[in-house]
């Protein structure tokens, strides 16, 4: 078909190193900055709005936020940027807030395992004393699951994600295929998703699927949280850890309690 008509044209390739006049660069750059100024203004407006809302919630002026319905929230995950995770004071404060709201199961995650080294060590030392009602629940997860003040805390990192799936795959391979000479003639094994889930459990890489995931960091990004546990999780960006607010968590919980999922239907 001949497409050389008023509605079409052919691209003329530009040389790779085309040097545009300075004035054109200035205009384009000015436009680029204008666009980003709009984004920043919008973010500022949104932050002011959130701040006002948090103030209203913390003053107890919104009755609907005072009685949270948490029956749909079986477990909550918190993803923290590894740099911000070094602020252990904030992390402990966050855990206290979550406990006070009534969360029963919290999964703490950061990419580089900073939380395992800092919070994990602190919680482990707490479990070894008689000062709290702490206990280690699962021997296989002894290093990462703690009970603190009626709230179970699981601490994981990137190594529990993709590498956990690789361990489960190796487990399945060793259980079903290694010594089976008949496999030679089969193209692929008959694993199902249930088999993979059981293998994850057997290798200690399984865990509760969080209903809600709070991201503390500069970007809304799950940073490698274990894929198998993230299927239908609501992911909410809470901003930086240093500027976290209790009222923002209450608002998020309230919004979550109003959510309805179809699960694909």
């Amino acid at each position: 078909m001949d497409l050389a008509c008023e509605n079409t044209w052919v691209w003329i390739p530009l040389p790779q190193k085309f040097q545009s006049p300075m004035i054109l660069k200035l205009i384009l750059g000015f436009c680029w900055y204008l666009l980003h100024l709009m984004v920043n203004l919008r973010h500022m407006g949104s932050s002011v709005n959130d701040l006002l809302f948090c103030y209203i919630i913390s003053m107890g002026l919104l009755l609907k936020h005072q009685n949270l319905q948490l029956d749909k929230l079986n477990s909550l995950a918190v993803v923290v940027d590894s740099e911000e995770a070094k602020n252990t004071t904030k992390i402990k404060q966050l855990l206290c807030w979550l406990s006070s709201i009534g969360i029963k199961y919290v999964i703490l995650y950061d990419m580089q395992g900073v939380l395992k080294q800092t919070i994990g060590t602190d919680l482990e030392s707490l479990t070894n004393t008689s000062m709290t009602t702490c206990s280690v629940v699962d021997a296989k997860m002894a290093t990462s699951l703690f009970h603190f003040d009626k709230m179970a805390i699981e601490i994981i990192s990137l190594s529990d994600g993709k590498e956990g799936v690789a361990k489960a795959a190796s487990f399945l391979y060793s259980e079903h295929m290694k010594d089976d000479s008949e496999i030679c003639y089969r193209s692929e094994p008959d694993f199902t998703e249930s088999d993979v889930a059981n293998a994850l459990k057997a290798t200690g890489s399984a865990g509760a699927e969080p209903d809600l995931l709070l991201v503390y960091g500069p970007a809304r990004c799950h940073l490698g949280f274990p894929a198998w546990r993230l299927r239908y999780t609501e992911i909410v960006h809470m901003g930086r850890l240093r500027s976290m607010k209790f009222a923002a968590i209450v608002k998020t919980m309230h919004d979550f309690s109003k959510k309805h999922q179809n699960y694909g239907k």
Partner: protein
Amino acid sequence: MFFLASLFSLKGHHPLPVFPPIPSYMYTLPRVSVPHRNLVIKVEKDLEMEKHGRKPEPNIFASVWRFLRRCLFLVLALGPMPNHIAFIMDGNRRYAKRRNVKEGTGHGVGFTTLTSICQYCYEMGVKYVTVYAFSIDNFKRKPEEVQSLMDLMKEKIDELLEEDSIVQKYGFRINFWGSLDLLSEPVRLAAEKVMTHTADNTGPVLSICVAYTSTNEIMRAIKKSCARKSFRTQGYVNCDGESVCEDNNGYVTVADLEENLDTADCPDPDIVIRTSGEARLSNFLLWQTSLSHLQNPNPLWPEFSLRNLVWAILEYQKIYPYLEARRRLAKKEN
């Protein structure tokens, strides 16, 4: 920051700023304007008139719109541009419900939106676009709805193979990711035909996730990795019973799994956009989105427009330094 640094750079410190180079796959591009979904009908009429040897009506508005769009994309390209954008096309049924029309109409308009967005991404130089068209969980819907979706899919897949389709003109490579054996045979055969037909294209890549969930993809990757590992192990034993096979340690690695995923020859998404304001990934690319910027704009998918896409790119550009630093750190640790 990017622009000012280069503008005031001294010789030998930063290179002088250049226009963003046109991606090579755009060089031989004959173009058909698809400025907005409401104008798609107009364009289709023009093409129909051409087929019958009549000259289409001149469309000055479309030309001006194209020019403005090109200027906008030149401005955007001064900042970092994503290489791969993934879309969860949510909200077609709600769109139809709000407008009191049949559900199928929502999906039809959604398809038009998809072609528009692909066009815009392609014009911006986004090489990879992935869309979540149909989940394995969607088979739980009413049979008549599933059937109408399958029929729509078959119709649109067949159109992709026509000579004047967007695929042929722009050299798109089309992938269908998912458990295609779960699809009805006509749809599966049509999808396989398109993939074979476009396998050698070097243009932009459109990946359509059909009968797909991420956990299913991971499970299939485990199966393939185990099968390959077993084959390699057995191969060594059959050839020489005494030789030591380097793969007979029985460990499947993360690299083994990644090379057997559906997405093996595509980079990870830079942005994942779920429309209609929903905050979950619904079992979509969970493995590949570790360092993707997750966005959930409020418009329903049929309402998603160029304005929303440009906003998404601007948000990505704002957060790019952070994501890039995390990617470098992750690569260093691997």
